[in-house]
């Protein structure tokens, strides 16, 4: 069944609440839940965009596929597209649905396995690896939030 405008509004409000929760979790230093809720907020936002088009959300979709199905990038001006696409890439490479069952040490191991313990110049990240990646995820999620929620409010559908 296709989504309706009411479904889109409901998902948008959920995304707003989840972004607020992400910010609060970040301020409280909850590493894993901050990252998990960031992805959840993005997922709700992209699902809202899909419903806004009165389309159906398929099962088992990743964040990039949801963005595609909702034509999220279609409305992003070319000048901002690289920044927003990069932000989504940062989140997609660090977020997975099973994060909600993970401890901080298991996330750290997974991030090392994924090579997320290295900077762009190849050097190892110094300090708390999960906190470092959490900062990247939160900053990236806020870029996507400003784009998606801001465009919803300030520009035409």
């Amino acid at each position: 069944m296709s989504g309706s405008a009411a479904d889109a509004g409901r998902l948008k409000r959920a995304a707003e609440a989840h972004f607020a929760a992400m910010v609060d979790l970040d301020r409280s230093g909850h590493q894993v839940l901050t990252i998990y809720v960031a992805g959840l907020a993005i997922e709700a936002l992209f699902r809202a965009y899909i419903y806004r088009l009165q389309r159906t959300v398929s099962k088992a979709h990743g964040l990039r596929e949801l963005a595609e199905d909702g034509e999220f990038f279609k409305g992003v001006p070319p000048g901002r597209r690289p920044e927003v696409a990069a932000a989504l890439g940062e989140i997609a490479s660090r977020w997975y649905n099973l994060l909600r069952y993970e401890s901080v040490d298991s996330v750290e191991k997974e991030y090392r396995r994924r090579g997320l313990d290295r900077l762009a110049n190849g050097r190892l990240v110094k300090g708390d690896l999960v906190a470092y990646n959490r900062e990247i995820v939160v900053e990236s999620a806020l870029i996507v939030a400003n784009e998606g929620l801001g465009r919803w409010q300030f520009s035409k559908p």
Partner: protein
Amino acid sequence: MAILETLKKQLEEEFPDAVADLELIDDRDQPEFARIGGNLIWPGFAGMTHIKRQRMLGNFKDAHLSREEQHRLSVILTFTPEEVGELMAA
């Protein structure tokens, strides 16, 4: 809806020349419990990361709002006037 007006006034005092565009965002049967969200548009955000902007907002919340009032808040997005102009032109 006094909390909306109070919060808007406090934000615009804390961030000089800002526009706090707030509203009740939940579609609840009991609007007195609906959450507040919106935008804070401030030239001072220029050149600042989004995390830093939100952490400034967090400090504002801690300084000015009770725990119950903080629980009423949904996300407040942070923009510069230029960023809003780009979104409106999109």
